[in-house]
């Protein structure tokens, strides 16, 4: 057996079934899932209580394809389900691929009980075992009459929680151990905090951070905050900020979310669920004024905005980032590649959700969040330093103000 790096720090857990599969009646699904939890509760001090309307430790859902967690399902066959290790947010959540035909005690489909019992093992902190007899063996082995939890799994789960006699007194405990990193362990995610809004005020300079978008266009660095943008070239800062909509006509006047300069020199802007393509400061011919939907690029319908977009010098490919997920655009930059989205933890130490990201003059990639920035170290696939540095150094600020005579390093 193999244990993950997180476990629940309480014994009494709750779960909520968010939806069921049409293949089985809702009542049957509830009973099967309850029985699957019993597999684990009989050998540990853990208890599992179904809740209907309140928040729960473990959320269970049936879904198809992309379902908002960075791990889209692949249709019938192959991947049947997945579950997140204990943690906050998505921790413990268990998802079944509804493209499968779910059955119970039958060879005519995939046995829900066996898969659920396996997935709940992950939700409690067990990883895959290479023991072919184990429930936690990753490949589906069909259904078994009168299933009993194999020894390997009993050992594994009791390593984490002890045997039933170890039941703790029912006193309030901190809910969970949260791993100190948010790597791709299906063990929770970094907390998603909404980006603060920036009403344009006199004091609201880029030096205080919270940059909406940043990029380099024809050797000038453009940074956007609220309804304005600033530009700094090799000779210093342009005298005044400019209203976005007075320079790029027909863009939303209240600011943008992200932009980048394409390989053909055109500029793509993102705002909400739309994007626009400009050639210099004119929208390309026949491009709809209201913009095109980002779903036309292949991102999921439930993606409401793009946080950041950047071209990675390492492979010269363009990436879109939203929350803790990212996509790679194809070489023509008109659609996302197969096998995305992926989890942002691959970009080690990059904070999420990002404010913006860009490729700088020095050929390096920088990620921005709040009042800090992180330089990315391509060959190690991590940020050069774990902690961010003050954003003013990147933008050319001194004493909290943009300095016109400062040239960037």
């Amino acid at each position, binding site marked *: 057996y*193999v*244990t*993950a*790096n997180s476990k629940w720090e309480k014994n009494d857990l709750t779960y909520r079934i968010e939806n069921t599969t049409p293949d089985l009646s809702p009542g049957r699904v509830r009973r099967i899932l309850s029985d699957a939890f019993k597999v684990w509760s009989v050998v540990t001090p853990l208890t599992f209580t179904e809740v209907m309307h309140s928040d729960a430790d473990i959320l269970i859902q049936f879904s198809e394809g992309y379902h908002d967690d960075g*791990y889209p*399902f692949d249709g019938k*066959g*192959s*991947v*049947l*389900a*997945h*579950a997140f290790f204990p943690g906050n947010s998505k921790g413990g959540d268990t998802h079944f*691929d509804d493209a*499968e035909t779910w059955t119970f005690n039958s060879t005519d489909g*995939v046995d829900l009980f066996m*898969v659920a019992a*396996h*997935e709940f093992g*992950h939700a409690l902190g067990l*990883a*895959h075992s*290479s023991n*072919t007899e184990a429930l936690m063996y*990753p*490949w*589906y082995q069909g259904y078994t009459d009168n299933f009993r939890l194999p020894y390997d799994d009993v050992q594994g789960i009791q390593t984490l929680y002890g045997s039933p006699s170890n039941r703790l007194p029912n006193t309030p405990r901190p809910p969970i151990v949260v*791993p100190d*990193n948010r*790597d*791709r*362990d*299906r*063990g929770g995610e970094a907390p998603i905090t909404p980006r603060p809004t920036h009403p344009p005020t006199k004091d609201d300079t880029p030096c205080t951070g919270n940059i909406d978008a940043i990029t380099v266009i024809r050797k000038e660095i453009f940074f956007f905050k609220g309804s304005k943008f600033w530009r700094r070239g090799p000779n210093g800062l342009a005298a005044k900020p400019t209203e976005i909509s007075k320079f790029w006509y027909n863009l939303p006047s209240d600011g943008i979310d992200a932009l980048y300069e394409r390989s053909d020199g055109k500029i793509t802007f993102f705002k909400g669920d739309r994007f626009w393509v400009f050639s210099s400061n004119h929208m390309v011919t026949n491009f709809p004024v209201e913009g095109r939907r980002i779903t036309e690029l292949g991102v999921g319908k439930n993606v409401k905005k793009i946080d950041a977009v950047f071209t990675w010098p*390492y*492979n010269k490919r363009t990436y879109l980032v939203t929350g803790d997920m990212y996509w790679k655009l194809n070489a023509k930059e008109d659609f996302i590649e197969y*096998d995305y989205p*992926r*989890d942002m*933890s*691959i970009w*080690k130490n990059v904070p999420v959700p990002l404010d913006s990201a860009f490729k700088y003059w020095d050929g390096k990639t920088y990620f921005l969040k709040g009042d800090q920035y992180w330089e990315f170290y*391509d*060959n190690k*696939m*991590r940020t050069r330093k774990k902690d961010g540095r003050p954003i003013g150094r990147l933008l050319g600020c001194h004493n909290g103000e943009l300095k016109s005579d400062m040239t960037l390093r």
Partner: protein
Amino acid sequence: APAASYQDATDWYRQREQQMVTYLGEFGYIHDASREAGPAGLTSKEAYTAAIKRLQRFAHLPETGVVDRRTLELMERPRCGNKDELDETQDSSRRRHKR
């Protein structure tokens, strides 16, 4: 079935190899970072072969290090979507430490 021509055989093999890279990345045998940077980047031929062997060992198949028939059959089998191999960055307890 025997391939119609050398070109067909080569295409077939390349396609399977690409499937294998995707599979190895999806289930944790190639580190996520290597997966993003691509085969020309952080994953050498040796690392790729070692990853196939680790998969074969995990599944109790002969460790040939190549995409053979048994390995292809294994890839066709339905399974859990969680990774088999935890990235060392994910599991601090399994990391090596200096004494």
